[in-house]
């Protein structure tokens, strides 16, 4: 009886601590490629704790680029290319088929897999990868990345991570969490009774910067992910927020305000010298470095309401970037520099929008969620993850930069906010 109570308590505690995000695809691409990931053969004695081919299936399906086939509908479950009856897969209207085998290796597992073109009946990929006992999910995401790159030409982001903030309803507890890009393997990396916001990755993926109110005012901290070591980096008197690493990781743009006038500053992370870049009575905030390491996009109220501007960090010149709508804020760039993604507000509706940097054309990406905020772009430029409000709760949702693919990452507990997608990690 006592044991049962303890177990129930433990279960309850783990529920409270974990958001447990699970991907639900809500809209796929019209042109999604049909692919059948046949369950991989496992030659070991004990059952595996993770189902690698099911994770690959889920990764490819949730990307929106592929339409996967339910294994229950498969007529046959081949594990070697020679066993594949192509006619059957053609009848099931599949374009590609993935077969593979998992075998025990020294201190872990080895996976060998093949990607076959159902129409040409050619083998496109034959690859082998090894991992240790704790890396089954990593192995699966590696395979997903490999297949994605091979068939779409775009680097996969299934092995990437994200950090995000969860809070309880009372806003008396704030967690900074770290998880796989599919929401699995969530870990609590920092906890506070006071707000945490604006997590930002260093370009090498080794650390995150974020804003914490733990000392009664907003201060910027760095935290090394491998060690958990924290460092208070920006804590001037007043408000310090919105950290953004330069593309080479040597400088940090941030916002500082001492008397109600927030401006953009840059800190040289080697010398810790700080320079003020904007000096305007309006609100200047949300700096984001562009890929050239010279220009910074930021939000400013200098024309009345918030709009996005571009700042030259060398000559300090400023030019306005957004003109459509009364509320445009929190700019993020796609990796190729062609599109800017931001929060676009119109009355009480706030959506994620993209703007083509050349033509200036604006497109609203997320019409089916509301009060959208905190967009973060995947490092391959394919998807944007953001926070939205649904039934008075904050959830994470994602949309492809072309607006075609949508998925949600609802959590079982509390509010999930401020997602930040990692760079591609090696």
């Amino acid at each position, binding site marked *: 009886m006592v044991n049962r109570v303890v177990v129930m308590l433990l279960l309850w505690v783990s529920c409270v601590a974990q958001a447990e995000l699970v991907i639900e695809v809500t809209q796929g691409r019209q042109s999604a490629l049909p692919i059948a990931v046949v369950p991989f053969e496992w030659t070991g004695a004990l059952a595996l704790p993770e189902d690698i081919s099911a994770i690959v299936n889920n990764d490819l399906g949730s990307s929106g680029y592929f339409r996967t086939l339910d294994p229950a509908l498969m007529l046959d479950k081949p594990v070697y290319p020679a066993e594949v009856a192509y006619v059957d897969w053609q009848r099931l209207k599949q374009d590609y088929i993935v077969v593979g085998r998992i075998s025990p290796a020294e201190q872990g597992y080895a996976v060998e897999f093949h990607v076959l073109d159902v129409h040409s009946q050619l083998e496109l990929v034959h690859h082998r990868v090894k991992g240790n006992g704790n890396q089954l999910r990593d192995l699966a995401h590696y395979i997903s990345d490999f297949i994605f790159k091979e068939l779409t030409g775009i680097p996969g982001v299934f092995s990437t991570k994200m950090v995000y903030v969860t809070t309880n309803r009372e806003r008396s507890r704030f967690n900074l969490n770290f998880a796989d890009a599919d929401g699995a393997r969530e870990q609590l990396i920092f906890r506070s009774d006071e707000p945490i916001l604006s997590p930002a990755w260093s370009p090498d993926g080794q650390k995150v910067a974020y804003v914490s109110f733990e000392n009664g005012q907003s201060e910027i901290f760095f935290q090394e992910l491998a060690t958990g070591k924290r460092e208070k980096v920006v804590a001037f008197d007043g*408000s310090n927020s919105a950290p953004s690493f330069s593309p080479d990781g040597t400088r940090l743009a941030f916002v500082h*305000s001492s008397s*109600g006038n927030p401006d953009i500053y840059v800190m040289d992370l080697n010398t810790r010298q700080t320079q003020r870049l904007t000096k305007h009575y309006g*609100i200047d905030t949300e700096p984001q470095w562009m890929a050239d390491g010279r220009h910074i996009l930021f939000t400013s109220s200098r024309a009345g309401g*918030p709009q996005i501007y571009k700042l030259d960090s060398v000559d300090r010149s400023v030019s306005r970037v957004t003109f459509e709508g009364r509320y445009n804020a*929190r700019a993020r760039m796609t990796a190729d520099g062609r599109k800017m993604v931001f929060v676009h507000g119109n009355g009480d509706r706030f959506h994620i929008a993209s703007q083509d940097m050349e033509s200036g054309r604006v497109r609203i990406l997320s019409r089916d969620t*509301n*009060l959208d905020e905190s967009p973060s772009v995947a490092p391959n430029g394919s998807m944007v993850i953001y926070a939205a409000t649904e039934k*008075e709760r904050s959830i994470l949702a994602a949309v492809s930069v072309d607006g075609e693919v949508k998925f949600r990452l609802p959590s079982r507990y509390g509010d999930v906010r401020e997602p930040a997608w990692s760079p591609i990690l090696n």
Partner: protein
Amino acid sequence: MQKTALYKALGVAFGAFLVTACANNGDLEEGAGSAMTATEQQATEATESATTAVESASLQGQSLASDATNAAQQALLDITTFYFDFDQSSIKSESRAALSAHGAYLAANAGAKVVLEGHADERGTPEYNIALGERRAIAVRDFLLLKGASASQIKVVSFGEEKPAAMGDSESAWSKNRRVEIKYQSR
């Protein structure tokens, strides 16, 4: 009588001539015209800032510190949350009486210290809302300073949209969240 009518008619005609001349001037010399407009604007602005100064002077004249201890003042001091309009940081007229009482109290009690917590509703981005919450708290601070409080008595912190007072995605909740709370650290 006829003369008067004539003078009147002449007067009207002369006036019309003047107006036309002025209009012509403006039409012919666009540069001069816009320069005049700029001057006019400056004059208007000057008038506006003068008006503000007069208002603040008259407000300062109501010496609230002297009767800050009476019951009415105490009731005003019990009001510690002040609300704002969307994307605005200007103090609403209904907040002035209670804020004046807090200002007078701080002026009369040099040992009293407050933290002004600025907040925003959940619409818009978290970082912009941090800035907005700070603007609101600073507006309250400036008002308190005007009432005689000293800067060393006041600390400002903005929580943006991170600590809503009411949950819900409608104006009734949002209007409760766009606020500044005065929190006394010592009385």
